[in-house]
């Protein structure tokens, strides 16, 4: 169905965080560290404070009161130590945006710099094994004897892939508008993927009871993970508003977003695979090297897909982390699964060539009966079905596996395949449903960051109640509504939808209202391996003259349980695949080794796919009945679309050119450098 908020979005009336009309609003503009490591010796705001309209400057010179156990990225102005270039170290507040910006520019900061270390290397002496990787997986797993498996294999590969720092770059820059009332209660309009958790974190950071904080986030201009955790701008707005006694708006610039809103960690990934003469895996080892900051440990689950994907008698996965003088990495669409599957699915393609097997056939032959690492049965697994259906639709049977032989003028043409996978989880959520004047009102503190949550929940409620969707009104995006988990981990619809179904069921029983809390229901979920699967096929054209790669065709076939709404689902899958195309060919933030921080801090230098980059994308899904997921029988679809796309494109580039580019993104320079 069409999005329920479609009309306000196309007429410019949908209100995002920075856009609420607030009487007497003032503006805050942050000051960022110009060194990567060291100490702030002095913040001189004397000139800034004399400038027109300036209401105040906050910094470590007069540290605002915060909870002692505040998260390292949120403990603003509490310490003179600098953890990374770009860290927020002061803020200027003024009556207008222009005055605040000018005042921030006039704040003089003196430093005592120290030597910094911002480079991730697989031989870094600081590497260690984290306790767990995001969100709560063991860092290492080992079953069977990998060395023995490799020794007995008929075909082996030992390859290293790297992926760069990538930035989420939602179109709406992070913004917060903070208002304190006379009783010490705080209202924050924040661009967040979860008002319940944002409220908790903001309250904890400020040392307030959660009941004193309300977060409202009715429309969010994309997030892809970087609005999933509370970011410093929200705390900054609250502190500034408290200091000047007026409402304060903070809208980060695109450049500031690169520094303080999280990013996808760079990875170095070594894969060793062995297969017997029939193409059956004898060993699979996946070791990932990643970075975090000195402030907070964030360890991404890069090697976890190998625990799910293929049957093998010997399986080892490991994560090693090093703490550098960098900002803390965070969630970006399918953290872990996305870069991990890029490397695994590229390696599987290399193994197919080494073993002389078709890459679709190699994957089919190694499809496991149960989840390889845990031994748990799958609630449903239709990877083989996706591969077969995709191969049929894509014309895979006509493919000549020989690389580098198809030419149309200056263009070399090739095709590639890769598998997709993403966990199908759900978390406890509350919801309420009431009936008024014959219409049904559903409340849940969910977030619609563009996923279509408002529409999907409307449809789920309508189907449960047996009424037309236009009689259902879903209210979300407000922490005053029943508590709900964050829009992340492809868990939104499954989590909120479960609670909405239960609330509506109760309403039908008593005829007036229903309240649900799915904590108990989820605690008794049976132990099963629950994942969505998919297969992606790509056709690329690579210019021999310029090295440019054009993706002429993408096909995604997914098995993701019951699809709640076909129109929204197709958009989600296409959107994920489009971002995957960006990952494959263009997205990369350079770390500035000399000065710390990042280079390419805007959209002219950090390229995301533009309209002309996206040609033909086709998406289909298999009808999958899985009653053991949630009341809807659905699996999350927000992230699986991006998982596998980059590998499919990379494999197609190899098929077109004969070159293996193992370092994303696959830029023209890398193609040309390899050829000459």
């Amino acid at each position, binding site marked *: 169905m*069409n*999005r329920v*908020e*479609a*009309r306000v*979005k*196309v*007429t*410019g*009336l*949908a*209100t*995002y965080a*920075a*856009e609420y*009309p607030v009487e007497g609003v003032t503006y805050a503009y942050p000051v960022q560290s110009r060194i990567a490591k060291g100490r702030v010796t002095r913040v001189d705001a004397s000139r800034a404070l004399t400038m027109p309209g300036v209401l105040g400057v906050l910094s470590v010179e007069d540290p605002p009161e915060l909870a002692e156990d505040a998260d390292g990225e949120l403990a603003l102005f509490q310490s003179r130590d600098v953890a990374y270039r770009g860290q927020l170290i002061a803020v200027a507040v003024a009556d*207008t*945006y*222009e*005055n605040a910006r*000018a005042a921030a520019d006039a704040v003089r900061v003196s430093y005592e710099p120290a030597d910094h270390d911002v480079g991730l290397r697989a031989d870094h002496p600081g590497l260690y094994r984290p306790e767990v990787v995001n969100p709560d997986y063991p860092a290492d797993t080992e079953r069977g004897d990998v060395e023995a498996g490799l020794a007995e294999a008929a075909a082996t590969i030992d390859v290293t892939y790297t992926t760069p720092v990538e930035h*989420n*770059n*939602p*179109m*709406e*820059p992070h913004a917060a508008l903070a208002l304190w009332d006379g009783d010490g209660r705080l209202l924050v309009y924040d661009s967040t993927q979860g008002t319940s958790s944002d409220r908790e974190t903001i309250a904890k950071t400020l040392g307030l009871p959660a009941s004193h904080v309300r977060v409202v986030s009715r*429309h*969010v*201009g*994309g997030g*892809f993970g970087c609005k999933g955790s509370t970011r410093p701008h929200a705390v900054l707005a609250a502190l500034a508003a408290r200091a000047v006694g007026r409402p304060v708006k903070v*809208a980060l*610039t*695109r450049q500031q977003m690169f520094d303080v809103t999280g990013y996808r960690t760079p990875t170095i990934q070594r894969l060793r695979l062995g297969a017997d003469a029939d193409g059956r895996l004898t060993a699979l080892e996946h070791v990932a090297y990643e970075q975090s900051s000195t402030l907070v440990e964030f360890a991404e689950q890069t090697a976890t897909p190998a625990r799910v994907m293929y049957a093998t008698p010997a399986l080892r996965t490991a994560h090693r982390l090093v703490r550098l003088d960098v900002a803390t990495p965070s969630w970006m669409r399918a953290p872990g699964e996305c870069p991990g599957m890029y490397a695994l699915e590229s390696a599987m393609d290399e193994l197919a060539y080494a073993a002389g097997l078709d890459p679709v056939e190699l994957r089919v032959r190694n499809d496991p009966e149960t989840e390889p690492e845990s031994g748990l049965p799958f609630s449903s697994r239709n990877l083989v079905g996706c591969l077969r259906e995709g191969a049929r639709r894509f014309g895979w049977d006509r493919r000549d596996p020989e690389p580098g032989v198809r030419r149309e003028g200056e263009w070399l043409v090739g095709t590639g395949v890769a598998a997709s996978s993403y966990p199908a989880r759900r978390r406890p959520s509350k919801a309420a449903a009431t009936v008024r004047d014959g219409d049904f009102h559903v409340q849940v503190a969910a977030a619609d*960051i*563009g*996923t*279509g949550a408002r529409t999907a929940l409307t449809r789920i409620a309508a189907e449960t109640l047996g009424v037309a969707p236009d009689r259902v009104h879903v209210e979300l995006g407000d922490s005053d509504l029943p508590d709900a988990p964050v829009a992340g981990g492809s868990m939104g619809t499954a989590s909120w939808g479960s609670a909405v179904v239960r609330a509506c069921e109760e309403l039908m029983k008593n005829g007036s209202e229903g309240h649900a809390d799915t904590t108990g229901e989820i605690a008794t979920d049976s132990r099963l391996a629950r994942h969505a699967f998919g297969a992606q096929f790509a056709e690329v054209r690579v210019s021999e003259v310029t090295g440019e790669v054009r993706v002429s065709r993408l096909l995604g076939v997914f098995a993701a349980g019951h699809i709640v709404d076909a129109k*929204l689902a197709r*958009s*989600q899958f*296409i*959107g*994920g*695949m*489009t*971002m995957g195309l960006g990952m494959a060919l263009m997205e990369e933030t350079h770390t500035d080794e000399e000065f710390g921080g990042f280079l390419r801090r*805007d*959209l*002219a230098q950090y390229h*995301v*796919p*533009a*309209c*002309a*980059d*996206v*040609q033909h*994308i086709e998406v289909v899904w298999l009808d999958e009945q899985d009653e053991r997921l949630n009341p809807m029988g659905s699996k999350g679809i927000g992230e699986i679309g991006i998982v596998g796309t980059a590998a499919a494109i990379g494999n197609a580039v190899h098929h077109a050119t004969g070159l293996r580019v193992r370092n994303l993104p696959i830029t023209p320079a890398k193609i040309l450098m390899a050829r000459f």
Partner: protein
Amino acid sequence: MDITLQVNGVPRAVDVDPRMSLLDLLRERLGLIGAKKGCDHGQCGACTVLIDGRRANSCLALAVAVDGSEVTTVEGLAGGDGLHPLQEAFIEHDAFQCGYCTPGQLCSAAGMLGEPGPSAVTDDVLVDPDLTPAEIRERMSGNLCRCGAYVNIVSAISEVAR
């Protein structure tokens, strides 16, 4: 500085800071939040409006430089209470997800439909080309969409261009 301009057909007289962009004037002073700030550097197109009928990035125009101009934002695109055909088509084709780039996409598409002449992908530059999907993709590449709705944006615009 005092300036006057027509915004969606309504004359507006405002005293503006000479550092203020047209985008900030619309959003922070005139209460028109349709034009979005995505980059403030003319790199994303979310702030696209029509200035005297031509599409332009309002973040790159200083407010004082549009004194006397006629500005149309997404709020005024339909020219009344109904929806512009592009707005209808965007809804039907699900040509947006988060909606933040959408006002810019719509204003850009409305401007683009009125722009004659060849583009970088036109084969015969002596003839006004048909707005094929390839032409639309090329001409709409100043408007980024991070949700990745391009496939649907092109089909929506194609329907209106027909």
